[in-house]
């Protein structure tokens, strides 16, 4: 056991003492005169053993003028001894420390998910320095070091493969449970596992800078980012404890009943209340992190549960983001000419459509020299090629430059678009040469996911895209999306979100996190997909889906609602118990030790209620849905 061997020993000793005390007390009550003093002794011993850590904390805190629950219990115990209620003193200290012991054991459980992640962190790295292989801690690795990875081992750095090849399980970073092949020049991440093969990796990012370390850091910070409810409860408890001390003093002044005043002191500890929200948040965020749904804080959990509308980016989010050229149409000249010009113009572009064009050109064996092109954001590129001014891009690019399509061209383009394809037009020297029709298939899970979100009560599902209206409409229809706003530039997406917010209330935006950063920031809640590897996504988004799997969304939405529900249950329960106890004390139905018993039991129940959240999303609750599996630390090499 990591903690508490000392605590555990003290617990065993005080349990034995409290049992002896009880037997002697009963014996004394039954008329064995000799048992009386022995009982008193045993009770005082119990109070001393069980109470020592409490008193220590109380006095330690008092020195810094902080009054906590330990101080309240200490006052109560001293008071009980002063009035000769030794059994009460023993019982109260015993129950309080037993409660504290059990609570820290159970609370540890709510944190188990994050611990499971921490265990995946690499603990040693084999570096090759001066021809020798040394095993060192991951924090001692330097950027530029050559790291040697053998099968079954964890990769300890983010870097580039210098030599060798193998299959890497990257579930920690990408959420993808199938291993990927990596060879010379390939990128590998810390926290992933080399399942087979052998790699020499040049370290690019080490220690705390690696993607994996940043995910861990993010989750840790998230669990401490407080929910609104939690902040309220904390400010509440700040004046509550002193107020109770004052109330007890007043009660004593008026009633002259010290036992009553002491009981009030003990039962009024807001233990269950202050812990009600944080335990739920820790368990909820931990559960999400384990399943590739990273939520950045308790406040985000609360917001997530109350989302009314969701806006999706199309390319790369609803679709796989790997577009393919389906048709090259040439109005004038050879078919290949239009493709060649397009490939030249898009040569340096990172846009997914550009990649599709380049891939098609390569597959036809064309090697176009990339031209220095001017990028017109959201529209296309302009460049010079073969002595002519060329344009490659959307219909709106042509309209901007005053180039019109003929009626025949227009109807051909429209037909392609209504089939869900994106049309890239190619213009050279003012004449429309042809177009390239590119299709990007919807993700297989998208339609089912939209339905699941609707079942969860999302009122409006909208697609925001820079693509043309017809292509967007075709995808939207296939997936059952309510509304399409197409042809949007990045700024247009931000404006669209503002109007959605006005119309529907809380709106979430789901995007790939790279091109959609402004939109993710503009929404009430930004959700970046497959973004764990991207710095921008991790910083701008409120929620990061580790894998590019849309089904995480409905799971996460359900999880956030369950978390908020547990939080509310806990708060109402804690308030209810406090109210009942208070009433019980005032009518003298509750004494010191019984009050403490109920109080500690309520704290324990609140924690156990939060532990239930760890089970959310297990196979039984998500019918047969594919789970993102973080790899286990001890994965055997195949």
């Amino acid at each position: 056991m990591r903690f508490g061997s000392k605590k555990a020993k003290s617990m065993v000793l005080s349990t034995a003492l409290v049992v002896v005390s009880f037997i002697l007390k009963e014996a004394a009550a039954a008329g064995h005169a000799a048992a009386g003093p022995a009982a008193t002794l045993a009770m005082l011993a119990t109070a001393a053993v069980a109470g020592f850590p409490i008193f220590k904390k109380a006095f330690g805190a008092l020195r810094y003028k902080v009054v906590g629950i330990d101080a309240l219990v200490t006052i109560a115990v001293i008071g009980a001894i002063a009035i000769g209620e030794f059994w009460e003193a023993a019982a109260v200290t015993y129950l309080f420390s037993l409660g504290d012991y059990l609570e820290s054991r159970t609370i540890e459980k709510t944190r188990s998910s994050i611990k499971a992640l921490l265990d995946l962190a690499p603990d040693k790295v084999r570096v090759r320095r001066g021809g020798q292989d040394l095993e060192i801690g991951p924090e001692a690795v330097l950027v530029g070091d050559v790291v040697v990875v053998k099968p079954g081992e964890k990769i300890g750095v983010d870097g580039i493969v210098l030599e060798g090849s193998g299959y890497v399980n990257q579930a920690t970073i990408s959420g993808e449970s199938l291993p990927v092949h990596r060879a010379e020049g390939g990128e590998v991440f810390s926290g992933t596992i080399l399942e087979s093969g052998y790699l020499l990796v040049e370290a690019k990012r080490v220690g705390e800078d690696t993607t994996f370390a940043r995910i861990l850091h993010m989750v840790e910070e998230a669990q401490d980012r407080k929910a609104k409810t939690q902040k309220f409860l904390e400010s509440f408890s700040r004046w509550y404890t002193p107020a109770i001390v004052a109330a007890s003093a007043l009660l004593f002044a008026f009633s002259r009943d010290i036992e009553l005043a002491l009981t009030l002191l003990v039962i009024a500890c807001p233990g269950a209340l202050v812990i009600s929200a944080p335990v739920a948040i820790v368990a909820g965020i931990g559960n999400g992190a384990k399943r590739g749904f990273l939520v950045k804080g308790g406040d985000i959990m609360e917001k997530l549960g109350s989302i009314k509308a969701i806006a999706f980016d199309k390319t790369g989010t609803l679709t796989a983001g790997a577009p393919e050229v389906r048709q090259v149409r040439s109005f004038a000249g050879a078919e290949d000419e239009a493709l060649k010009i397009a490939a030249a113009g898009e040569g340096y572009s990172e846009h997914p459509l550009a990649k599709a064009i380049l891939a098609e050109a390569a597959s036809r064996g064309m090697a176009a020299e990339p031209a220095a092109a001017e990028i017109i954001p959201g529209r296309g590129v302009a460049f010079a090629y073969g002595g002519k001014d060329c344009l490659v891009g959307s219909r709106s690019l042509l309209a901007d430059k005053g180039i019109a399509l003929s009626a025949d061209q227009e109807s051909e383009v429209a037909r392609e678009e209504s089939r869900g394809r994106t049309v890239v037009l190619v213009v050279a020297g003012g004449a429309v040469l042809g177009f390239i029709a590119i299709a990007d298939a919807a993700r297989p899970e998208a339609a089912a996911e939209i339905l699941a979100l609707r079942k969860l009560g999302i009122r409006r599902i909208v697609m925001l895209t820079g693509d043309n209206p017809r292509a967007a409409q075709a995808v939207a229809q296939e997936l059952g999306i309510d509304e399409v706003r197409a042809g949007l530039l990045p700024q247009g997406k931000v404006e669209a979100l503002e109007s959605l917010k006005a119309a529907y209330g809380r709106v979430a935006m789901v995007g790939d996190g790279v091109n959609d950063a402004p939109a993710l920031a503009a929404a009430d809640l930004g959700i970046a997909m497959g973004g764990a590897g991207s710095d921008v996504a991790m910083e701008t988004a409120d929620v990061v889906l580790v894998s590019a799997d849309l089904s995480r969304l409905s799971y996460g939405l359900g999880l956030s609602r369950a978390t908020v529900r547990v939080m509310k249950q806990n708060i109402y329960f804690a308030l209810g118990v406090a109210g009942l106890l208070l009433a019980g004390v005032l009518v003298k139905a509750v004494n010191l030790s019984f009050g403490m018993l109920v109080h500690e039991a309520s704290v324990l129940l609140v924690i156990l209620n939060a532990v239930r959240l760890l089970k959310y999303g297990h196979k039984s609750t998500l019918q047969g849905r594919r789970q993102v599996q973080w790899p286990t630390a001890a994965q055997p090499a195949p």
Partner: protein
Amino acid sequence: MTTKPYQLETVSCPSCIAKIEGMLKRTEGVAGSQVSFATSKVKVNFDEAKIGSDQIRERIVRLGYAVLGEK
């Protein structure tokens, strides 16, 4: 100024956090501190010229919270 995280034994109540932070706030040489309930870690920002890491540890322990390690 340096910042150091200390791993504590499981902190089981959020009010303990207020206590530890309150104590550190009144400690000479400590500019700021942050206690994490989720991970039971304390991050302390302090002036090494005025107070040593060992003294900070000792103060936390004296308050009744075992320090399991520095990270």
